[in-house]
């Protein structure tokens, strides 16, 4: 079943193209997730208004085939008040903070300093926790 011609051409797609599309679609997914959970900016139209752009511009950005600049992403992050892209180090820092808050809440007697020592993020403990 299926087409060998399509299958063979699909196999020739460069891994660079695959990575670029995967990255753009991940950004699209994150923006849609933020909009779905945002307190005030819930739609692409509302995001367009907040950024003083046309709705078609936002639609273009979220197509998955548009090359969003870092500057545009930062502007969106500022309007939305949330990070869209996070580096590994930023994610670790946020994760560390979240785990500490959780432990302090749950255990009560744990001080945040104790929690940091127990988790030992810098030695890779965060991934195992």
């Amino acid at each position, binding site marked *: 079943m299926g*087409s060998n011609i399509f299958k063979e051409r*699909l196999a020739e797609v460069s891994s660079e193209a695959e990575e670029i599309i*995967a990255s753009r679609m991940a950004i699209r997914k994150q923006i849609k997730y933020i909009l779905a959970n945002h307190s005030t900016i819930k739609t692409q139209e509302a995001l367009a208004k907040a950024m003083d752009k046309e709705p078609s511009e936002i*639609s*273009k950005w979220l*197509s998955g085939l*548009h090359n969003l600049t870092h500057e545009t992403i930062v502007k969106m992050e500022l309007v939305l008040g949330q990070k869209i892209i996070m580096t590994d180090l930023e994610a670790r820092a946020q994760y560390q903070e979240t785990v500490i808050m959780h432990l302090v809440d749950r255990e009560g007697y744990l001080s945040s300093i104790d929690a940091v020592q127990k988790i030992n993020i810098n030695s890779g403990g965060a991934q195992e926790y």
Partner: protein
Amino acid sequence: MNSFAYIVELYRFNTVTFYTVKRPDGKTEADIFVQKISALPLFKQQFDELLAWMEYIGNSQEGAEQELLRPEGLCVALPPPATQLQSPIEIRWYCYWINEQNVIMFNGGIKTARTAQQCPNVKQHFFDGQNWANQLNEIEIFTNGQNISNLDELYFEY
């Protein structure tokens, strides 16, 4: 005497099955399109991105969301709507959206004019797309997940 075209499977991803049109001469519209665009080195990167995009949505949890397809009269097309792309994609691949799991791919080409009707490369494929979409709109298409259940009944005038 009328000739008939049939719907056949093109490629099945984890979430989306793409179908195409089998012509009376046995060739499929999608194969003709793929061979035509693949023969144009200038458009290799564009086509790579378009295929990578199909692969991504084909395997994504959400599938072929309708908003990701470009409205083209009665049918739709790839790439997604983006009228002011920094690097516009000139490839047009006309198709018929059934639902998030099932899409029928027609033919297309490199669009060189402002409208499809004015472009010598895609005009015929645009009109074919309108004609076939119109006929498919009249036929009840039953799906079960990413399968068209009544595939044997799906034929139309070519």
